């Protein structure tokens, strides 16, 4: 095949594709910490987040992505967390958010 220089390549889709994503890790995480499933997406954790006020870290977004099987970069993101624990104080569902950070880091260290 003659190599033609097109000047671009086919863009990769960025939709979350739940037919393709492997939810095994996500299921493991939810099994260890079922309370995470009770998140109502209110965003209080992210609003109060010390790291989030200094960096682009968005705890709600990252753990939601993990629950959808989107693990890429989650470990690095969770490393931005300073483990101050304020999020746990504000969570209206009483989720051990700090524990969620630790758990995701432990489970997804190799992603």
């Amino acid at each position: 095949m003659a190599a033609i220089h097109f000047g671009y390549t086919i863009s990769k889709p960025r939709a979350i594709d739940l037919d393709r994503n492997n939810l095994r890790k996500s299921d493991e995480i939810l099994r260890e910490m079922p309370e995470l499933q009770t998140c109502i997406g209110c965003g209080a954790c992210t609003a109060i987040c010390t790291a989030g006020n200094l960096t682009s870290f968005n705890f709600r977004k990252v753990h939601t992505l993990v629950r959808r099987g989107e693990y890429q970069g989650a470990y690095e993101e969770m490393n931005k967390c300073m483990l101050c624990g304020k999020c746990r104080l504000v969570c209206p569902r009483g989720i051990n958010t700090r524990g969620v950070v630790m758990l995701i880091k432990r489970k997804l260290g190799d992603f």
Partner: protein
Amino acid sequence: MMKRRSWQEYQKEIADDRYYYARSCIRQNFFPGSEKAFIDILQNDLGKELLDDPKHSSCTGIGYHSDIVPLETIMTVVARQFSLMNEAGYENFVTSCITSFGIYCEVLSTWNEFPETEEKTRENLLKATGREFRKPASLAHTSDVMFHFRDQIAARAKHRLVNAVTGEPLKVVEHIGCHYAKIFPKSGIGGSEFPYVLAGMIESWGGEVVDYPERRHCCGFGFRNYLVQANRGYSIANSHKKLESMAPYKPDFIVANCPGCAMFLDKWQYTIAEMEGTTYGQNGHGIPVLTYEEMAGLVLGYDPWALGLQMHQVDVEPLLDKMGIEYDPAAKYLGRNGKYIGKPASAVVNCCPTDTIYDIRE
């Protein structure tokens, strides 16, 4: 067959005769044979009157959707087209382009919703050209007109959209083109979710419509996303997504409403093959893509090369063979009066036979 019923709720008045015809930038460039076929079918097969006015122009819609032509400007260009139509004594405007059709719908609706914009347009047109205008009595896309006469065409059919050997209906993917009904669902036959304009032709002429997951997805033209080379990854990715989604249904061909979509669904098959070696279609030589004029022309027995099917990148011969259409393979790439002008270089989705006769039955 798809359980489409809702289309009957989206009907529109389509004029029976006397059309003022507006050409399409993309269709005349890539499918000049389709525009010719439309005129020939209307005038010769159906005995209708149509004016091809040399004074009309582009609607400038590609410029508008590339955001370099302002709304006020395009409204005035549209007003000039209407003025030309008035001058010629016509009142049924038909346009050969989906982008244009969307533009005309949008302009008429904007004038209706915001009357001050119509006033301003009249002022601009008068100042620029000394012209005045009346709005058309009816506005249609050329495919609407073809749909309108689908039964007459079926009655004169020389070929049907069926496999000539097995008698099975051909499986057809229809692609509507976003601006046909997504902007103004009531302006398209069948509305925006289950448009019936092409499906109606396909069913009338013996074929079977394929519904597939990404049926409603955009071809990916995206104006600036194709026109600027740096952005073409978006454009090809969207067509790629559609082709991947339709491939498992093994369609015999794709028919497109919009000339841009027809061109992209054809050309991107070539590019995808060159870029990553993926080919579609039963024999790995691509899924043929037709315009609806070409589809109608084949049904009516027009010669494939007179319809301009040689201008497609993906070979159409497998489809012609399935339909049992006689054609001269050697005449495919000839110039005017049978002049030999060389042939395109061969590619994965274009076998470009030099002396072989293409026959899928082998």
